[in-house]
């Protein structure tokens, strides 16, 4: 553990990406991509949608992952999600493409995720909203929904010129770069500065493309989980208090990470170790 901390702190000092709040989101995106292109010139951009498997260091694990992808367990979850979708007529109000989420709702001045719109859609149809936003039915429905857009590229129509929308984006960006928890790590420590490196037998994925493969079937969970389930898990891993799924911070973080994945293909749902 001590060795790991030293390595990560060292990495922070070297090649830290300069972040100023005056930079526009478009500049942020440019810088984010450039950082990874320079650091891993041999990795094609689209590969970042495959998370840790994008890295050459993942070699053997990638072969194992590809074997599982021949018939991955999430196909069961997709079927279950499809059943629920059709049985409840979600197609009537879930008309936005998955590549457009999260979106900005000007009326409520909130970042809105697909999970929230699914529940709003159910409510509109006079049905019970889904309570568990981390696993189970919501994960299945998200799997079916996002699977329909597999291969399509992330393209947010986010109104950065709206000051409230921009502020929400900035909140997400701040969250990503801020240190937290007893271990005092930020998302960036692991997923920018130490991306591609090993931590306790696992390879750290790049933050670039992070949200493209969610919801994800993790062999560790023995099941499917949503993006906010994973955010909670990551918080716990740095000994920080996890936030509730669909909290304002997680939605802002999701927006930031998804915007950073602009133009990358969706690979959802995904399978991971």
């Amino acid at each position, binding site marked *: 553990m001590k060795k790991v901390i030293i390595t990560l702190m060292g990495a922070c000092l070297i090649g830290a990406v300069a972040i100023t709040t005056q930079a526009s989101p478009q500049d942020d995106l440019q810088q984010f991509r450039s950082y990874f292109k320079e650091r891993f010139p041999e990795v094609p951009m689209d590969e970042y949608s495959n998370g840790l498997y994008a890295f050459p260091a993942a070699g053997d694990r990638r072969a194992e992952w590809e074997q599982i992808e021949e*018939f991955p367990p999430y*196909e*069961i979850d997709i079927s*279950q999600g499809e059943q629920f979708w059709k049985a409840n007529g979600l197609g009537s109000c879930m008309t936005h493409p998955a590549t457009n989420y999260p979106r900005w709702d000007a009326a409520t001045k909130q970042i809105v995720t697909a999970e929230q719109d699914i529940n709003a859609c159910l409510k509109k149809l006079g049905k019970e909203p889904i309570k568990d936003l981390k696993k189970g039915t919501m994960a299945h429905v998200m799997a079916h929904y996002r699977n329909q857009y597999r291969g399509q590229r992330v393209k947010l129509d986010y109104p950065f010129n709206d000051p409230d929308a921009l502020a929400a984006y900035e909140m997400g960006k701040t969250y990503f770069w801020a240190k937290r928890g007893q271990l005092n790590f930020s998302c960036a420590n692991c997923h920018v500065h130490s991306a591609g490196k090993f931590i306790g037998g696992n390879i750290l994925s790049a933050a670039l493309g992070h949200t493209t493969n969610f919801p994800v079937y993790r*062999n560790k969970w*023995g099941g499917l989980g949503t993006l906010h389930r994973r955010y909670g898990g990551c918080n716990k891993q740095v000994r920080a208090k996890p936030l509730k799924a669909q909290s304002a911070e997680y939605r802002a973080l999701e927006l930031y990470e998804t915007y950073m994945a602009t133009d990358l293909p969706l690979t959802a749902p995904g399978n991971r170790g």
Partner: protein
Amino acid sequence: MAKLTKIKTRLTGDETEVLVLVNHPMETGQRKDSKTGEKIPAHYIQKMSFALNGKVVAEANLGPAVSKNPLTAIRVKGTKTGDTIKVSWSDNQGESGAAEAAV
């Protein structure tokens, strides 16, 4: 409600690879429920049979060391387009499931 069983087939020459995915917990009986501290009872697929046009060509025995939501695949000989492959399974708690696919 029957556990979901999904089949995929891939015809190569006159052999068909049959891949089966079953939504099954494959509990070993050793895992403890985090809330109650009690051991979760063993619940795993034991038998799985593969039939080509109604005739059994292979029978697999699975045990608790097979992964949750198991994938099992074999290659059936002497198949042609239009043939039917049926996979049936049963577990140690008396549950069963099946799925069919056309080659």
